[in-house]
């Protein structure tokens, strides 16, 4: 009996390694064109290449382009940091039909969109806590173009969050309270406005999302909403839409990020899918890495090496000892 068991394990073991060795020739993987996406793709690439003997080809792109390509063409095979909210209408059917699979529904923890203030602003006003408190004080955030109003920096024109911010601006009745909604024009404009405010210790209130280097770098503080989430239905039919006649006060919808793989890879990927499922970056680790990348102006590959060296305790829990040893040897 014991012998049989041993043999079966051995056979299964062999079969498994055989499968991986056979399939794991070439893998195409998405490298999302923002810092955390870059880092995650390069960490995956290093671990898969050194630890599992794969040959990984990175495909650079944005959320919609990568998703469309995976959904229609089946390449790339893996997308590490696929943001779900914006794609839900397309992603849900793809997952339901089995064309794509979510192998990890939370590869990064502690993420989300919302309204942020710099730490010194928060410190200077301990009595103000939630969004409801802050919006009573537009005088703390004078607008450059009309100092009698408070500037709330929203989302660049044409982004999905533009409607959300505008509708929340209305729902919290901010215009009557003396605020103007500032359109930063682009991601560079939004980042620049945060950077400028922080370099000069000016107060700032506006939209951003985490994990990002700019949030980590300036230690920006998320403002709690002080109101309940009004539910998916109101969010989907009103808050996130351009035409929303009666927006209700609500907190921001919970953001979700998945690691998704194509159906073909789900079948053939073997233990690589186990690795992808186990690979979870805690929010503070991701934040620290993003600050490192911004400060050192490090590209994804350099950052991935730094991560593997600095956070050995973390990533070795994602893989077997055998694989960990191979990756460590390669470093």
């Amino acid at each position: 009996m014991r012998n049989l068991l041993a043999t079966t394990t051995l056979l299964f073991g062999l079969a498994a390694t055989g499968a991986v060795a056979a399939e794991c020739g070439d893998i195409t993987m998405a490298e999302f064109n923002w810092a955390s996406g870059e880092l995650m793709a390069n960490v995956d690439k290093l671990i898969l290449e050194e630890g599992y003997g794969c040959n990984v080809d990175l495909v650079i792109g944005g959320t919609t382009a990568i998703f469309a390509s995976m959904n229609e063409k089946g390449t790339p095979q893996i997308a590490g940091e696929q943001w779900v909210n914006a794609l839900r209408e397309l992603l849900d059917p793809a997952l339901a039909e089995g064309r794509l699979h979510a192998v990890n529904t939370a590869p990064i923890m502690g993420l989300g969109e919302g309204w942020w203030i710099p730490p010194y602003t928060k410190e200077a006003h301990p009595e103000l806590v939630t969004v409801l408190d802050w919006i009573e004080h537009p005088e703390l955030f004078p607008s450059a173009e009309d100092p009698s109003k408070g500037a709330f920096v929203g989302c660049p024109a044409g982004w999905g969050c533009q409607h959300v911010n505008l509708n929340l601006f209305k729902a919290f009745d901010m215009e009557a309270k003396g605020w103007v909604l500032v359109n930063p024009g682009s991601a560079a404009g939004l980042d620049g406005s945060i950077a400028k405010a922080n370099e000069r210790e000016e107060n700032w209130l506006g939209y951003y999302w985490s994990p990002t280097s700019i949030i980590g770098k300036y230690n920006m503080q998320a403002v709690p909403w002080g109101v309940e989430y009004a539910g998916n239905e109101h969010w989907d039919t009103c808050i996130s839409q351009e035409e929303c006649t009666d927006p209700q006060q609500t907190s921001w919808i919970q953001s979700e990020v998945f690691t998704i793989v194509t159906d073909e890879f789900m079948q053939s990927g073997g233990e690589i899918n186990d690795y992808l499922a186990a690979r979870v970056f805690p929010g503070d680790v991701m934040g620290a890495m993003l600050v490192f990348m911004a400060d050192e102006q490090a590209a994804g590959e350099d950052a991935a090496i730094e991560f593997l060296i600095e956070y050995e305790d973390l990533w070795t829990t994602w893989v077997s000892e055998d694989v960990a040893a191979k990756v460590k040897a390669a470093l």
Partner: protein
Amino acid sequence: MGILTEFPEMGRADLRDFKKGIDETFRLFTREYGESIENFFYPLLKFLGWFERLIVATPWPLMILILSGLVWAGSRSWGLVFGTIFTLLVVGYLGMWEDTMFTLALISVATMLCIIIGIPLGILMSKSDRTQSVITPILDIMQTIPSFVYLIPILMLLGIGKVPGLIAVCIYAIPPVVRLTNLGIRLVDKDVLEAADAFGASPRQKLWTVQMPLALPNIFAGVNQTIMMALAMVVVAALIGVHGLGQEVLKAVNNQYLALGMMNGLAIVAIAIVFDRVSQKFGKRLQKHSEVIHG
């Protein structure tokens, strides 16, 4: 052999320190002088804000009347006047009136600013070959450097909004008026200058009564080019939060809204054509005028 195939690079760490050093220096500079630079531009912000509010608050029939009056004054061409009225009506009917007015305000103020700075600079260049040899390469840089590159320091210094947008537009749009002012003055016939000297004209008299009038057609060609280039920068200015047609174009690009992009893009083109035709006609009339006197 390796030395020939691999370029002898500075080395990763040194290069990174080099870049970080530059960034750090600029950051210190912003912290030190950012606020005073912002205060320096505050009057400009006030003026632009006032001008924008004025244009947007003006009732549309009055605005069309004023604009067609300006077109008539510049071109003396009924065809152009009717063309302008038609264009404005179509733009307004398609729901782009307010954005068009924002863009018009920005372009007008940008053009004024470029002329106020550009013409004196051109005169200076024409007075001395050394000044010319210093300014010309700077103008070359301003015209060719990708605008995204200077958006970063402008953002750090002035944040987002109208004034940084205006400055970005002017950096790109000012070179033609400077170059053509310089060229126009330098092209004035030596014989005419000798005649002026013979009549005992002081350098100041020579400049204002002989050189400038004769150079006007060239200067006007420069102004015309400056306006065109300013319009080309509308979308880039929108990237740092300037209202107007550019903002809608960006929105269209981000969402693949074909019609929205086309409509707003064509509205920019329409403004450009009106500006171009009027300033060209005006330039031609100036030329005729001078031909009669000096010809």
